[in-house]
C-alpha cells in the first residue's frame, strides 16, 4: 500500500473527530508558537540592545571617575552620560576636569583619537515655557564634538558650535519629547523660543532628531547645551560627569583606550592599580549585553520547549485513546489484509499529521504575535526558531506516535475483532 493511501486513511481518522483533533493540535500550536514568540522576544531584546549601543557609535569610548568603592556596578542599558551624575559621597579627591578633556585632544600623544567631548550632566532641571513645565531627566552640557560622536543631528534649526561654547551662549537643543511637552503638537513651534531651565533663560536653536524609546528609556527626553553655559547656570564648576571620545576607527578603539589611560595616568599620577578613572568602550558593553540577552534567549527557548513537549504528550495521549477506540477498525483492517506495516504507517501518519498541522498553525500564530509592538519593543522572528520549532513538532509526532502505532499494529486480529 502506498504512503498516499495511508495518508488518506490517516486524514480520515483525523477528520472523524474534529473537535478532539483540533484540541490536540492546539497543544502543539501553543508549544510551537511559544518557541517562536519567546525566542523572538530574546532575539528582539538582543537586537534592540545592539541597535542602541550601535547608535552610540561603535568606536566611542567613555571615561568616568572611579568611585572609591571597590566595585561600581554599572547598568549597561543606560547611556553612559546619565550615570555618575555627581553624587559626591565616597569619592576621593579624584576629578575629571576640562583640562583632562583638552589633554586628550592631542594628536601627538593620542593619534588614535579623533574627537573628545567633556560631559557635564545637570540633574533636577525643570524646563518651563508660558506656564507649561517639564522635568528633564537628562540635561547634558558638552561641546559640538559630542554631537558628532553620538550621531546627534537636528531635524530643525541648527546645532551649537564651538563659538557658542566659547561665548557661553545660552542656547540649547531639545529632544522631541521635551519639545512636545512644552510647545504642544509635534513640538516644532518651540524652535527659536526662549524657555527657562530652573528659571534661567535659554534659546532653543535646534530640535534633535528622534532616537526613539529603548526599553523604558525615552532617548528623546533630553536637552543638550554648551557645557560652559550649563556650568554657569545649572551644574556649577565641579567635576565633569564623564568624557567621551571617538577613536579614528572601530579597529583603533583599543589603541585609543591605551592612549587615554597613559595620558590620564600621567596627569593624575596613577598607574594600573591606583587608577581613579575607568575607560570603557561600546564593544565592551555590546559583548556584555549580548552575552546577557543570549542567556535570556536560551532560557526562554528552553521554557517554550517544555510546552512543546507537553503538547507532544497530548498527541500521544490522544493517539492511545484513538487506538483503543478504533480497536475494532484495526481488527477489521487486519482481517481483510492490512499488514503490521500498513497499520503502523496509518497511525504514525495520523500522529505526524496532528503535530505537523498544529506546528504550521503555531508558526503562523507565532509569526503574527511577533508583529505586535509592545511599548516600542517588537519580537524578531528568528528563522532558526521556526526551523527548530517545526522540526521539533515533526519529531514529537514521530516519537509520540510510534508507541500508539506499534500498539495498534501488535493487536491480534482475533482479539481486536472481539473488542467491544
Amino acid at each position, binding site marked *: 500500500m502506498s504512503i498516499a493511501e495511508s495518508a488518506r486513511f490517516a486524514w480520515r481518522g483525523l477528520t472523524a473527530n474534529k473537535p478532539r483533533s483540533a484540541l490536540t493540535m492546539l497543544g502543539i500550536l501553543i508549544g510551537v508558537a511559544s518557541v517562536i514568540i519567546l525566542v523572538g522576544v530574546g532575539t528582539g531584546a538582543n537586537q534592540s540592545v545592539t541597535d542602541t549601543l550601535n547608535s552610540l557609535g561603535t568606536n566611542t569610548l567613555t571615561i568616568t571617575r572611579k568611585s572609591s568603592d571597590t566595585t561600581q556596578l554599572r547598568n549597561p542599558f543606560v547611556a553612559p552620560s546619565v550615570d555618575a551624575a555627581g553624587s559626591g559621597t565616597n569619592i576621593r579627591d579624584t576629578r575629571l576636569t576640562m583640562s583632562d578633556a583638552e589633554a586628550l585632544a592631542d594628536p601627538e600623544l593620542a593619534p588614535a583619537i579623533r574627537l573628545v567631548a567633556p560631559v557635564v550632566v545637570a540633574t533636577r532641571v525643570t524646563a518651563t515655557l508660558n506656564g507649561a513645565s517639564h522635568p528633564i531627566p537628562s540635561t547634558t552640557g558638552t561641546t559640538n564634538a559630542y554631537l558628532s560622536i553620538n550621531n546627534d543631528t537636528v531635524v530643525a534649526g541648527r546645532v551649537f558650535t564651538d563659538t557658542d561654547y566659547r561665548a557661553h551662549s545660552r542656547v540649547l537643543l531639545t529632544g522631541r519629547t521635551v519639545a512636545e511637552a512644552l510647545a504642544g503638537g509635534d513640538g516644532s513651534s518651540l524652535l527659536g523660543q526662549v524657555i527657562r531651565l530652573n528659571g534661567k533663560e535659554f534659546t532653543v536653536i535646534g530640535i534633535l532628531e528622534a532616537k526613539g524609546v529603548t526599553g523604558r528609556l525615552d532617548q528623546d527626553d533630553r536637552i543638550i547645551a554648551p557645557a560652559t553655559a550649563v556650568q554657569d547656570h545649572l551644574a556649577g564648576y565641579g567635576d565633569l560627569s564623564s568624557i567621551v571620545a571617538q577613536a579614528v576607527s572601530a579597529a583603533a578603539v583599543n589603541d585609543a583606550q591605551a592612549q587615554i589611560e597613559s595620558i590620564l595616568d600621567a596627569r593624575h599620577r596613577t598607574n594600573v592599580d591606583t587608577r581613579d578613572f575607568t575607560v570603557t568602550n561600546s564593544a565592551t558593553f555590546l559583548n556584555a549585553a549580548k552575552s546577557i540577552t543570549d542567556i535570556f534567549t536560551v532560557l526562554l527557548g528552553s521554557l517554550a520547549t517544555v510546552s512543546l513537549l507537553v503538547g507532544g504528550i497530548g498527541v500521544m495521549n490522544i493517539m492511545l485513546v484513538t487506538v483503543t477506540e478504533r480497536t475494532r477498525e484495526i481488527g*477489521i483492517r487486519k*482481517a481483510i489484509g492490512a499488514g503490521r506495516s500498513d497499520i503502523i504507517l496509518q497511525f504514525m501518519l495520523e500522529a505526524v499529521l496532528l503535530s505537523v498541522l498544529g506546528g504550521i498553525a503555531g508558526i503562523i500564530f507565532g509569526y503574527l504575535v511577533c508583529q505586535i509592538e509592545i511599548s516600542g519593543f517588537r519580537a524578531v522572528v528568528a528563522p532558526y526558531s521556526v526551523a527548530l520549532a517545526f522540526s521539533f513538532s515533526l519529531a514529537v509526532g514521530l516519537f509520540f506516535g510510534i508507541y500508539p502505532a506499534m500498539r495498534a499494529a501488535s493487536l491480534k486480529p482475533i482479539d481486536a475483532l472481539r473488542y467491544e
Partner: protein
Amino acid sequence: MTGPPDRPVIDLRNVSKTYGVGETLVHAVDGVTLQVQRGDYVAVMGPSGSGKSTMMNLIGCLDAQTRGLYRLDGVDVRLLDDRQQSRIRNRKIGFVFQNFNLIARTTALSNVELPLVYAGVPARERRRRALAALREVGLADRIEHTPAQLSGGQQQRVAIARAMVTEPVILLADEPTGALDSHSSEEVLALFDQLSAHGRTLVVITHEAGVAAHAKRVLQMHDGKIRSDERNAPVDAPPPALRHPPTGMAS
C-alpha cells in the same frame, strides 16, 4: 481460481486449539479433521461453546491452531509470518461477520475498495471492481452512503461485496444473519445461493437450521469435535434452495 481442482481448499488434519493451562485448560477445537472441496457450500452448526467460532477463526487465519496441520489452498499457514498471513487473508479469504464490521464514517464504496487498497490495486481498477461488486449485491444506488445511513441488511450486503471483491477462494461467514430481520436474512441467504451457484466456496457458521438448510453440506459441532457430517447436495450441483425453493422464499 488457482490450483488443481481435486485439491481441497480447506484441509484440517487433527487440528486442536486450546486456551488456558492446567486446571483451566479448555479444548475449544479438539482434534478436528476436515476437508472442504472447491465449490462446496458448508454450514457449521452447533450450540454456543461448541467451538464453531474458534474453527472459523482458524480457517480464516485470524487465529493459530495449538496442534495439527492446516493447509489453506495448499499452503501451511503456520509457516507464514504476520505479513504473509495478512496477504493470505487478503487474497484467499473473504469475511462476513455477524455485526457486519464495516468501517464507520466511510462510504460503502470505500469499504468495498479497502481490501483492494491493501492488495495494491490501482485506484481506477479498484473503483471499477468495487462498483461491480456493489452492483452484484444490488446496492449500486447506495455507494456514497456510510454504514450509519444503511439498514442492517444493506450493511451486510456491503460486507458481502467487500468479501467478494478480491475474488477469494473461500467466503467465510460467521452468523451472517444473526443480527438481521427475517426479510434481510432471506436476501443475504439468496445472495449466498447465487454465489454458490457461480461456483464459489462458502463456509457459514450458524446455529439456525433455516440457514443451514441452504448449504450443500452440514456439519454439527459439539465440545470442539465434529459430531455429524451430512451432505444435502453434491459439491458440483446447485445449492438445495435453488433446486427445491422452500415455501415463502423470495427467489
